[in-house]
């Protein structure tokens, strides 16, 4: 959080609803509310860790910020060079220019690279699309990037199929870096990798962040990974951010019952049998949300107000936001007590 005046990314009331169609006429019968009114700032040079279970909308949020999908409603601003860019209001050409500053590292290193292109062509693809440099400049850029992500020059001419998962993810990282972005959305970048390789990639990303002053939105369901990389943590549940604070606050002093349950559920390397909070059932269907708080159906503390009134995300302590009616009165368990 070096630049306190203005965040690099401002997300205001972002909504991403997917229509549910039915019947011969494809009549819209409802909406899957994948991202449901999210407000979030991402500061320059920080890593914002985004956690949540599958289907909570964390990947959709990442993609919508980069405008890989058009939003239903809301704004995303990108503040850069004293300019404020309204991402969703830009034309194609402007968008292309700005997208060179915003890149994505994908989850699956086996499908995110083009198998028919050499490693070189994969890496310089963003440069070609953005019309940056000539062939020779692009090649030398690819070469230096490849070295930085821990591969060798001779790998440039090979095809992705001859690489392991960890190496492919390195290539994916090199591709994202080729256009010298400011902001990277990393969507479960270590999910498909073995643990020993996972550690290599995590260390690589941290190193690159230092070298290039990168800002990350790091999406993962693995709280251990998030704890390792994130400065702040946002917890998402069924399309909403339910808690947002610094890493240590979220982990040690959670204010939302869902965060508490999530932390409690994570298996630990310890032999003490903890009294674990086991949530009942599964998250609600995002196309058929319950009234009131989205979490009340599984919350052990839920009261009447939770069933009727939607809680707002509010700043309960400095820098610690939570959307829970009862946050003041609950004393929840974190990981370190």
């Amino acid at each position: 959080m070096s630049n306190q005046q203005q965040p690099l990314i401002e997300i205001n009331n972002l909504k991403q609803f997917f229509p549910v169609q039915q019947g011969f006429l494809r009549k819209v019968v409802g909406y899957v509310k994948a991202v449901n009114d999210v407000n979030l700032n991402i500061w320059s040079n920080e890593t914002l860790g985004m956690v949540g279970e599958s289907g909570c909308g964390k990947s959709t949020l990442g993609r919508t910020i980069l405008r890989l999908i058009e939003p239903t409603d809301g704004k995303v601003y990108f503040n850069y060079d004293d300019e404020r860019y309204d991402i969703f209001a830009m034309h194609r050409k402007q968008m292309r220019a700005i997208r060179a500053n915003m890149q994505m590292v994908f989850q699956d290193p086996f499908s995110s690279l083009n198998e028919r292109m050499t490693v070189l062509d994969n890496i310089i693809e963003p440069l070609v699309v953005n019309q940056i440099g000539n062939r020779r400049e692009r090649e030398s850029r690819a070469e230096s990037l490849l070295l930085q992500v821990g591969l060798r020059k001779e790998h440039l001419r090979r095809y992705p199929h001859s690489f392991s998962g960890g190496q492919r993810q390195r290539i994916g990282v090199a591709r994202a870096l080729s256009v010298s972005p400011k902001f990277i959305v990393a969507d479960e970048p270590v999910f498909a990798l073995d643990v020993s390789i996972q550690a290599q990639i995590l260390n690589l990303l941290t190193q690159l962040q230092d070298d290039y002053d990168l800002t990350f939105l790091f999406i993962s369901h693995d709280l251990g990974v998030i704890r390792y990389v994130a400065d702040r943590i946002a917890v998402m549940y069924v399309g909403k951010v339910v808690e947002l604070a610094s890493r240590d606050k979220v982990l040690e002093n959670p204010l939302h019952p869902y965060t508490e349950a999530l932390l409690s559920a994570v298996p630990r390397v310890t032999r003490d049998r903890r009294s674990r909070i086991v949530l009942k059932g599964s998250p609600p269907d995002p196309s058929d949300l319950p009234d009131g708080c989205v979490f009340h159906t599984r919350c052990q503390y839920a009261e009447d107000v939770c069933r009727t009134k939607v809680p707002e995300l509010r700043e309960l302590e400095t820098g610690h936001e939570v959307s829970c009616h009862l946050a003041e009165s609950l004393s929840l368990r974190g990981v370190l007590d």
Partner: protein
Amino acid sequence: MSNHLPLLEIKNLKTYFELDSGTVRAVDGVSFSISHGETLGVIGESGCGKSVTAHSILRLIPSPPGRIVDGEILFRRDKQKDDALDLAKLHPKKEQIRHIRGNDISMIFQEPMTSFGPLHTIGNQIMEAIEMHQTELSKEQRRKRTVELLEMVGIPNAEQRVNAYPHEFSGGMRQRAMIAMALSCSPYLLIADEPTTSLDVTIEAQILELLQDLQDQQSMSIMLITHNLAVVSEMSDYISVMYLGKVAEFAETDRILDNPLHPYTKGLWRSIPQIEGEITPLVPIKGSVPGPHDIPTGCVFASRCEQFMEGICDRPQAVPNYEVEPGHFVACYLYDEDVEGGRVDEQSTTASD
């Protein structure tokens, strides 16, 4: 460990696959045992042979190309009597192993999405499993038993849900139904191959809790295969660490967590980000797991090991198993007293056999 004989004892198991590109030694001299009522955690990265070991026990290895080349899989129903049955010697398609499969030993798989056929109801598929092994039950009894099983694994409204199709169940529910089916004949041993890998943490917690409760109730043994160290440490009594078809280290859970000996185990422990405790830098294991045709001779971990000793670790014969402290086995020359540079760990002075 008591004087009781173990339920399952695997000795020097070797399962090879003969492929056009050469022989793949998926499991190459694996030994371990599981006692009655205990949980053994088998941990390792992809390609370490943990799943092939499990499939070998049930004789589910497709043949050709797969084959159990050597070794014994001794199975004892009664811990008092030494009348072990060697599963490795049975014909994989004959009555005897089919009786054991699902009845004495059953298995749950990683993918709850594909373990049920899509065309039949969950109930019918569980009833079919019961019908195979408990032929004396009538249709009505089978149905009743199925509903009981579904209730036992915590499926709400089991009476109605028994008629649901697999696609109507969520991932966690399907994994519960899978467990219900696996437990339908009260097996001695449940082999759980990455049972929670595709599930969310809150659902994972439900399933792990369920497995522990069921184990307490039925005193069955569990062989839990996973790549998740935390899951293993919460669930297991013993841990076996596998790497490239071999057991690198085997010990009681506390022992192996507090005092890992094999450089691979140490490397694994250091490369996993934890949810609690001090945040220490991750130290990855260098390189990556070699492909099945590039396995080093001698110690299979040699190509990635920071403590590689030239002239010792690259000797072509398999690394012996050293018992560094009672019940703590490690396959690494560092613990050989006769090797120069060996016995790095000065604390463990207990002599090996």
